[in-house]
């Protein structure tokens, strides 16, 4: 097997002090292969560790335990030119389409600075052409966007320029953290379309971090459901959204407000109310305090990733009759079609 592009090896990230701490990510192992042009969603509610996972992969901070590897080399060892090169290969699009722009500069800056920094263009006209191409690829008309200030554009347009910027650098991986949550519903589809096109036309894998399972279902191929830093369920997104098996995934899926008055919110009232239970030291399954199916074993031992079929794992003892997949092989559910 070839070396994966980016790999989390048993990564734990803890924030806070010795006495008062939060385990944001708990022993996560995950790998993305070089030639794997798929979209993988990392989903979960606030505090599930999804953003932490993205930040670790971008190298914005290091893990407390475990390793983050880029082509087999730990991120922490990157310095100078190597770090510079790494930064180009992993690009990001963030949540807030306002905060990434300096309001005093024209939006052109967001595109021209990376061209300058990475010396992508030989001349000014070549740079201009690159910027125009990048904008066209995300469905924007350059004459309507270049030369404008951020406040003159809509949130959707700004977010698409951010995608265009990432595209310009031809990255090996794009990490998007809630790219559409601050954008109007009617403009979301344009951004998702740009992401999908980027993924399919240029073969760039995308990690789509979100709490919104509706867009996750529509844009991605695979999904990992996190809860308090641990994997609850992972695999093929269609199967998981249409037929969730972990009680937590069931709760999430049943809380999706589908835009159809005939499809009403379903699911267990009990689980919903129980979500107010404070987090305590848990030795077993993290979802156990909220789970209506809780058994004795759930309180004592962390469930393994039970493989219910070739393309799905469920960390729940209700599935214990299925073979367990070793945690370090989690990515296998993403490769077996």
């Amino acid at each position, binding site marked *: 097997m070839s070396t994966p592009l980016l790999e989390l090896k048993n990564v734990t990230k803890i924030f806070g002090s010795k006495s008062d701490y939060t385990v944001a990510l708990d022993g996560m192992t995950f790998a993305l292969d070089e030639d794997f042009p798929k979209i993988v969603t990392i989903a979960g*509610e*606030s505090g599930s560790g999804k953003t932490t996972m993205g930040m670790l992969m971008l190298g914005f901070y290091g893990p407390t335990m475990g390793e983050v590897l880029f082509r087999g080399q730990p991120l922490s060892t990157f310095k100078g030119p190597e770090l510079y090169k790494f930064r180009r290969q992993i690009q990001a699009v963030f949540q807030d389409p306002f905060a990434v722009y300096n309001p005093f500069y024209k939006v052109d800056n967001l595109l021209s600075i990376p061209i300058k920094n990475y010396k992508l263009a030989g001349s000014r006209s070549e740079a201009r052409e690159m910027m125009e191409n990048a904008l066209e690829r995300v469905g924007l008309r350059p004459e309507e966007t270049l030369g404008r200030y951020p406040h003159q554009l*809509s*949130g959707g347009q700004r977010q698409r320029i951010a995608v265009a910027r990432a595209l310009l650098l031809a990255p090996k991986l794009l990490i998007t953290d809630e790219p559409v949550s601050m954008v*109007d*519903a*009617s*403009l979301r*589809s*344009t951004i*998702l*379309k740009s992401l*999908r096109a980027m993924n399919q036309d240029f073969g760039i894998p995308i990690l789509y971090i979100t*709490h*919104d*399972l*509706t*867009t996750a*279902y*529509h*844009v991605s191929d695979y999904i990992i459901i996190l809860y308090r830093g641990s994997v609850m369920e992972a695999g093929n997104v*269609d199967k998981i*959204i*249409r037929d969730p098996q972990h009680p937590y995934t069931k*709760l*999430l899926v049943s*809380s*999706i*407000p*589908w*835009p*159809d*008055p*005939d*499809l*009403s*919110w379903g699911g267990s009232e009990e689980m*919903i*109310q129980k*979500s*107010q239970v404070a987090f305590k030291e848990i030795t077993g399954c993290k979802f156990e305090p909220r789970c209506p199916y809780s058994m004795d074993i759930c309180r004592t031992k962390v469930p393994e990733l039970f493989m219910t079929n070739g393309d799905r794992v469920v960390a729940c003892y209700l599935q214990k009759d299925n073979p367990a997949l070793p945690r370090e092989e989690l990515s296998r559910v993403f490769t077996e079609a």
Partner: protein
Amino acid sequence: MSAPLLQVINLKVYYYVEAGAVKAVDDVSFDLESGIKMGLVGESGSGKSTMAQAMMRMIKPPGKIESGHMILDGIDLVSLSEEQMRQTKLRKLAMIPQGAMNALNPVMRIDRQLIDGMLDHGVVMSKDEREQRVTELLEMVDLPPKVAMMYPHELSGGMQQRVTVAQSISMEPDLIIADEPTSALDVVIQRQVMETINRLQERLGISVILIGHDMGLMAQTVNRLAVMYAGRMMEIGETRKMFHDPLHPYTQLLIESLPVLENKGVFSGIPGITPSLLSPPEGCVFHTRCPKAWERCREEIPQFVEAQPGRWVACHLHTA
């Protein structure tokens, strides 16, 4: 039939900027009966939040309520003095704000924040009565009594939002305006907060205007839907009918663009961009993006008429 709880008549709210008047709300009229939950949807810039602010009389210069009436239970809110309006707020109508974390006072305990409004309105309560009222309000929004002695930062986002819900019902108003109350929360918490609002709405028989852009949330929670576009009301009707048989081309496109389970990977947006509110197009404001527009749409502003019983629409396709 008795008079509706709220009647908005030809309301216009303009913002006066250097370049001219921004017509944020332009000639909007609708009625709302008691006990109805109405959703008010639209894209950014459609005027939905301006509507909410106008109803609370919170429009600040350079904005101004240009003309029109908002008659709540027989009283025209537009004609009230600042002081009269202050007296009306919380008693007759209250607002649930968008971001609870910015609406609560970070250095005041929750109990104080819950009854502050009541005290300000001259409600006289003994210490015991105050405590009892606080516990009662917390219980109504499914929060444990211990929350009373806590500060906002000790609560999660969903719990903070419940506190603002409790504040809004503290004087049992007739109408609650909720401006995207759950847009900062994730799905499970969003659902908890919405179910709390729903339960209270039924228990106390209040009317609710829920402002937002999430059509999914609307489908799950409101019984009437109002659609705004570029400062104008496009269509109002019963939620189910609006989803199944939208009359206005804008509503049709809006509903077609929604992600549904059956259509994976189909991303359809509404082509074109929203017009400038400084110089909205002549005729129907939607004609520049409307696939069904014809000559008349470019020249004449369509009237907002009752096309079917309970279905109001502003479109030349539906005016005789």
